[in-house]
């Protein structure tokens, strides 16, 4: 390709019809074309509740100015919104008599030929059904013209607003609502004090981050503990403390903290996020503790598909423990396969085709690993079954690496095929290089050094182009060793 005449950013951007997002649009909503107001702040007049239709629960009447109420904006494409719904359902039951909570889904992407927004309504209803525990609370849907979302200046989700006497009295993350509602009910809520408190919280969290970056771990920990004491429902603070303990090299203290957390079982805690951290972050993971964390997450999961996903994480922890500790003992691989089969059964029962195919592929890999080195022919048959049917997101390079590492008599033809599949499905040059190097490793194991060298040379040139220094060093080392053999 000729390289002349490239016009970079400045000129090309000028040709873009709709300005790309460099900051959230405040002047005009790029989809609805409505004028958007700036985000609402404490003291601003609350715009009206102009809900297009209700997806669940009673319609909320906010006509009485003496009744405070809460409005929480969500969007279906938002994992945090999903997570907050059961909690908001509980809050609604506990405080709804005094402070009604109105959930509003807004800013859904328009669907062609759906001027009335029926598809959005359907999406919201399916989501409410999937999350469970939230179906009795009041949930409205903004119209396809996005009038309400734009009037309220909503640009991010979820966003909660407390309205008292027609004015915004508090705004923030809905998971922080409980103490606010408690104070409103008791008649002790002070908007200015709440705002100051929130600013102080942001400042403290920033200070903890700065202290940790400057390796003042004691200082960072002290702030994290203070924040946890004042915001016990904020899961990210627990993650922060765990990470500080690990970064400061206090693995035992980190494990102890994890034990305490499992024991304390804070209400509404985000166990999903913590599970992978427990075995990916530590230098020497405490796998038994990771597995206990996964069990706690499974016990606290609110719907079946979340259980299936957590079971697949548990399988990954078993496999990681096997790889780290017991290469000749296959019991952890058997356990991994056992839990993955449960995940598969759940996804089948729920009709979740996408996850089912993923779990099937993961299970086939575990079965391959289970037999590799025990009966290589059976192991190779599992690999062949994956190669011959459509499977999403298969880590082909891992099949090649583990086949070469664990099989005594690998089927080189299948491993070369796997490497080719890895190359064909690569997204970028680093992945292409990985695939080429894995194919080179198969040729090297077959003592076909000229082909192995040529593949590693190609891998080197690809990672050099992609400026991936770590991979470059690995491939150059392999190349030099192959040249010596030749």
């Amino acid at each position, binding site marked *: 390709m*000729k390289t002349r005449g490239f016009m970079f950013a400045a000129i090309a951007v000028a040709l873009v019809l709709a300005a790309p997002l*460099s900051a959230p649009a405040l002047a005009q909503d790029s*989809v609805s074309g409505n004028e958007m107001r700036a985000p609402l702040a404490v003291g601003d007049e609350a715009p009206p509740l102009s809900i297009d239709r209700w997806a669940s629960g009673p319609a909320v009447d906010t006509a009485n100015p003496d009744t405070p109420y809460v409005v929480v904006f969500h969007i279906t494409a938002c994992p945090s919104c999903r997570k907050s719904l059961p909690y908001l359902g509980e809050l609604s039951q506990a405080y709804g008599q005094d402070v009604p909570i109105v959930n509003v889904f807004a800013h859904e992407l328009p669907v062609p030929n759906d001027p009335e927004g029926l598809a959005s309504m359907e999406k919201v209803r399916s989501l409410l059904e999937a999350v469970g525990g939230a179906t009795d609370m009041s949930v409205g849907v903004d119209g396809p013209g996005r009038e309400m979302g734009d009037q309220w200046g909503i640009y991010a989700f979820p966003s909660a607003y407390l309205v008292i006497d027609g004015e915004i009295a508090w705004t923030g993350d809905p998971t922080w609502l409980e103490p606010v509602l408690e104070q409103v009910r008791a008649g002790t809520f002070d908007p200015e004090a709440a705002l100051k408190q*929130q600013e102080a919280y942001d400042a403290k969290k920033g200070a903890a981050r700065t202290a940790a970056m400057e390796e003042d771990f004691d200082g960072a920990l002290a702030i994290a503990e203070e924040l946890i004491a004042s915001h016990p429902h904020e899961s990210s603070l627990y993650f922060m403390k765990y990470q500080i303990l690990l970064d400061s090299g206090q693995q035992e203290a980190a494990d102890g903290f994890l034990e305490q957390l499992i024991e304390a079982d804070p209400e509404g805690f985000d166990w999903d*996020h913590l599970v992978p951290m427990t075995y990916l*972050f530590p230098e020497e993971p405490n796998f038994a503790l990771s597995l206990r964390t996964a069990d706690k997450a499974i016990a606290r999961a609110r719907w079946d598909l979340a259980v299936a996903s957590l079971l697949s994480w548990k399988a990954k922890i078993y496999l990681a423990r096997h790889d780290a500790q017991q290469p000749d003992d296959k019991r952890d691989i058997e356990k991994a396969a056992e839990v993955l089969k449960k995940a598969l059964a759940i996804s089948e029962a729920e009709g979740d085709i996408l996850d089912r195919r993923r779990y099937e592929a993961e299970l086939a890999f575990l079965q391959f690993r289970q037999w590799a080195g025990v009966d290589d022919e059976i192991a190779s048959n599992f690999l062949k079954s994956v190669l011959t049917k459509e499977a999403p997101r298969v880590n082909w390079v891992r099949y090649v690496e583990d086949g070469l590492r664990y099989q005594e008599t690998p089927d080189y033809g299948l491993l070369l095929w796997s490497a080719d599949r890895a190359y064909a499905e690569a997204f970028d040059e680093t992945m292409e290089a990985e695939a080429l190097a894995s194919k080179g490793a198969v040729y090297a194991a077959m003592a076909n050094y000229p082909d192995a060298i040529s593949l590693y040379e190609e891998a080197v040139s690809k990672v050099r182009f992609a400026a991936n220094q770590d991979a470059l060093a690995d491939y150059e080392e392999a190349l030099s060793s192959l040249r010596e053999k030749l």
Partner: protein
Amino acid sequence: MTRLKTALACLFAVFQSAAAAPEDPGGWRIEAPDRMAPGEIASLELVFDINSPWQMYAPSSLNDAIGVVGLAVSLDAPEGFAVSQPDYPRPVNMGRYEVYEGPQATARIKVRAGADAMPGTYRLQGQVQYQFCKPTLCLPPQRDKLALVIEVE
């Protein structure tokens, strides 16, 4: 593993309340040739700048399953031109979803001017769909139009 660690470390980031001054999650731009010869193939790049701790969802069946909006780029070829399917960058697997992290993610589309394309100005139009989120907050999915002009000599 390192990339996942970096990604999860974003949980450490300071939470900003949704009603605070809007943050800048990033944006996109096109890098493309302004002119081509008949029969020539050029690479058009859509460069997404992603400011940490924001992440952008990748095109992925995992993301479809949880209902978030993955990156999707489409470009229509005017008569005399051919365009490839987009080549999306490799995402980071976060267990339940797959994302792109900063500072940049680049999707590429190959554009070929036909061997007998007449000299003149050609306008290529398409659409970019994407969504930015961070651990506690999501921006609404965006669907932007894109267009660029290429001169065939």
